[in-house]
C-alpha cells in the first residue's frame, strides 16, 4: 500500500454501504482495532499468526490488529445477553501477507450480521439477498454451499464415534480428512512396527527415561484408542463412496438438492441437513433470488472459511482468481457457542469489500 493514498472515496463507499444496512434495521457497532490475541489464538491456533498482525505490551499482553469483525461482534453480542439483533459495521481489517505481494495488508470491510434463531432459513436468505442487491451492478459470480452437509454425512456414518470425531475435527483440512478416510477404510494399512507395538505385552519396554509433561498414562490412553481403532471394522467401501458422492455435489441449487436427496436414501441421517438446504432454497426464492441458476457446491469454501458451519456464499469476479472475492458470508452458530460461555444463538452474516467494489466499478482492478 502506498504511503500517499487518497482513501476518501473508499471511506465514502464504506459509509454508503453501512448506511444502507442501517436502513435495513441494523444497529451500527464499532469494535476496537486492537483485540486481545488470546481469543483468536484459541479459536484458530497457530495459523492465525501467519494471517494477522500480533503485537504486545507489558500490561495487556498479546494483542492483534483485528483480522475481521465477526469475532469481536459475536463476543460483544454474547456478552450483552444474546437477544435477537442485527448489526452493521465499517472499517479497516489487517492481514499479514507472506506470499502474494499484490494482496493488500489493510483494507476496509462492511458487514451485516444477524443473530436470530426464529427462522434460520429466512435469516440466511435475508443476508444473502441484501448483499446480492449491493454487489448486483458488478455482475459477479455467486457461489453457495453448506458446511452442514459434510458434517451431517460424517455424523451419519456407520462407524465408531472416535472416527467420526476425528473426521469432524478435520472437516476444514481436506488433506488430513482424506488421509483419515484412507486410514479408517484400510486403504492405508497399519505399519508393521505399530502392529507389533499394540500386540506387545509391555509397549514401554524400550523406554529409557520419561520426559516431558505428557504422562505415561496419557500415552497408555492413546494406545487403548489405537487398539480400539485396530479392532474396529474398516469403513466400508459403500460408506467411503457416500462421502465422495456428497463431496462431489456441484450443481445448480435445485439439481444439487435432488442429488442430495438421492444420496440421503442410503444415508438417512443426511435428511435434516438436506431439508435445511431446501428450506433455504424456498426462502431465497421468496426473496426473489434466481435459485434455478444459483450454483451450489458441498465443498464450497471448505479450506478457507473456517468459522462457518452451515450456509456459505461468496461473490467473485469470474475468471479473476487473482482477486479476492468481493463479498463472502455464512452461518456460524458454533462460533456463538464457543464464545458464548454456555449460551448460544443461531447467527449468519456477510462482509463486502467496498474498496475492491469501487476499484472494479471504476475499472482499476
Amino acid at each position, binding site marked *: 500500500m502506498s504511503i500517499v493514498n487518497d482513501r476518501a472515496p473508499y471511506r465514502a463507499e464504506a459509509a454508503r454501504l453501512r448506511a444502507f444496512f442501517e436502513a435495513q434495521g441494523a444497529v451500527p457497532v464499532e469494535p476496537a482495532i486492537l483485540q486481545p490475541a488470546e481469543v483468536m*489464538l484459541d479459536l484458530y*491456533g*497457530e*495459523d492465525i*499468526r*501467519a494471517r494477522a498482525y500480533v503485537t504486545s505490551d507489558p500490561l495487556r499482553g498479546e494483542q492483534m490488529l483485528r483480522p475481521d469483525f465477526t469475532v469481536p461482534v459475536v463476543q460483544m453480542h454474547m456478552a450483552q445477553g444474546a437477544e435477537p439483533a442485527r448489526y452493521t459495521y465499517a472499517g479497516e481489517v489487517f492481514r499479514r501477507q*507472506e*506470499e502474494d*505481494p499484490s494482496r493488500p495488508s489493510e483494507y476496509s470491510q462492511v458487514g451485516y450480521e444477524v443473530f436470530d434463531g426464529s427462522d434460520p432459513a429466512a435469516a440466511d436468505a435475508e443476508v444473502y439477498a441484501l448483499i446480492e442487491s449491493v454487489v448486483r451492478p458488478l455482475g459477479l459470480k455467486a457461489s453457495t454451499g453448506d458446511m452442514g452437509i459434510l458434517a451431517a454425512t460424517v455424523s451419519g456414518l456407520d462407524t465408531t464415534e472416535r472416527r467420526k470425531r*476425528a473426521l469432524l*475435527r*478435520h472437516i476444514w*483440512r*481436506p*488433506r*488430513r*480428512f482424506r*488421509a483419515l478416510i484412507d*486410514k479408517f477404510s484400510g486403504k492405508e494399512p497399519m*505399519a508393521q*512396527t*505399530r502392529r507389533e*507395538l499394540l500386540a506387545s505385552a509391555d*509397549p*514401554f519396554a*524400550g*523406554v*529409557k*527415561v*520419561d*520426559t*516431558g*509433561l*505428557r504422562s*505415561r498414562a*496419557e*500415552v497408555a*490412553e*492413546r*494406545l487403548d*484408542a*489405537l487398539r480400539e481403532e485396530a479392532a474396529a471394522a474398516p469403513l466400508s467401501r459403500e460408506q467411503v463412496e457416500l462421502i465422495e458422492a456428497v463431496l462431489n455435489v456441484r450443481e445448480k441449487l435445485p439439481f444439487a438438492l435432488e442429488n442430495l436427496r438421492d444420496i440421503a436414501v442410503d444415508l438417512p441421517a443426511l435428511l435434516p441437513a438436506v431439508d435445511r438446504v431446501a428450506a433455504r432454497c424456498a426462502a431465497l426464492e421468496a426473496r426473489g433470488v434466481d435459485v434455478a441458476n444459483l450454483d451450489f457446491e458441498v465443498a464450497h469454501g471448505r479450506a478457507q472459511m473456517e468459522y462457518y458451519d452451515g450456509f456459505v456464499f461468496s461473490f467473485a469476479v469470474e475468471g479473476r482468481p487473482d482477486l479476492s472475492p468481493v463479498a463472502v458470508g455464512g452461518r456460524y452458530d458454533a462460533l456463538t457457542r464457543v464464545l458464548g460461555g454456555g449460551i448460544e444463538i443461531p447467527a449468519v452474516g456477510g462482509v463486502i469489500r467496498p474498496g475492491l467494489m469501487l476499484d472494479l466499478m471504476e475499472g482499476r482492478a
Partner: protein
Amino acid sequence: MTLKLGVPSKGRLMEKTFDWFGARGVTLSRAGSDREYAGRVEGADGVELVLLSAGEIPRELAAGRIHLGVTGTDLVHEKLAQWDQQVEELAELGFGQADLIIAVPQCWVDVDTLDDLDAAAAAFRRKHGFRMRIATKYHRLVRDFFRDQGVADYQLVDSQGATEGTVKNETAEAIADITSTGETLRANHLKILDDGLILRSQATLFRARKAPMDDADRAAMAALAAKLGVD
C-alpha cells in the same frame, strides 16, 4: 563499485567457506586480527569480502546490500518471503548439512508420524486445556509445514537455543529444530518422527537478484562465476 560477497564471520562455517573458495583459486582471508570483521580477497578482481553473522546474510541479500552470500538454506527459507524471487541458488557447498525435523520424547511410544502427533495433540488439548507446545526458532517453516500436512491443536513457542532441553524443562512438549547427527536429540531422549523432515539444509552460495550492479560489477560477477564453476 565493488561486488560484495557476504560470508559467515566465524567458526567452522567461515573456515569451510574459505576452503571451498580456496579450492577454486579464490583466496579469502580475514584482514588484520581475528577480532576485526574485515576481509581480503585474492584471485578475483573487484570483489570485496564482508564478514557477517550467518543469520543476517539472508536479509542483506534480500536488501541488495551484498551481491553474493554464503548461508544455510534453512535460514533463507525461514527469513525471506518468496525466497526464490529474491535470491538465486548458485551452488550447494557440500558442508553445513543439517535437517530441520520434528522430534518428540522417545517415551511417546504411540507417536511415530505426523498423524500420531496430530491425534496426540487433540487429546493433549482436551486434557491440559492448552495446545501442545512445539519449541522452535523456525516459525514460518514449521507453521507452513503443519498447515500443509493438516496438523492442528499445536502452538509454537520461541526457542533461540538449547531447544532440545525445552521438553525436559516442560516448557514444550515437542521440538522442531536443526539436527545433523541426531546425537543431541538422543542425549535428550527425543526421537525424530518418520515423516517429520521439514527441510534438508546445507551451506549454499546465493546471488541477490535485486542488488544494484554497474558494468564493472557485472564483469566481475561473470569472471568470479566462471572461476568458481557456478556460471
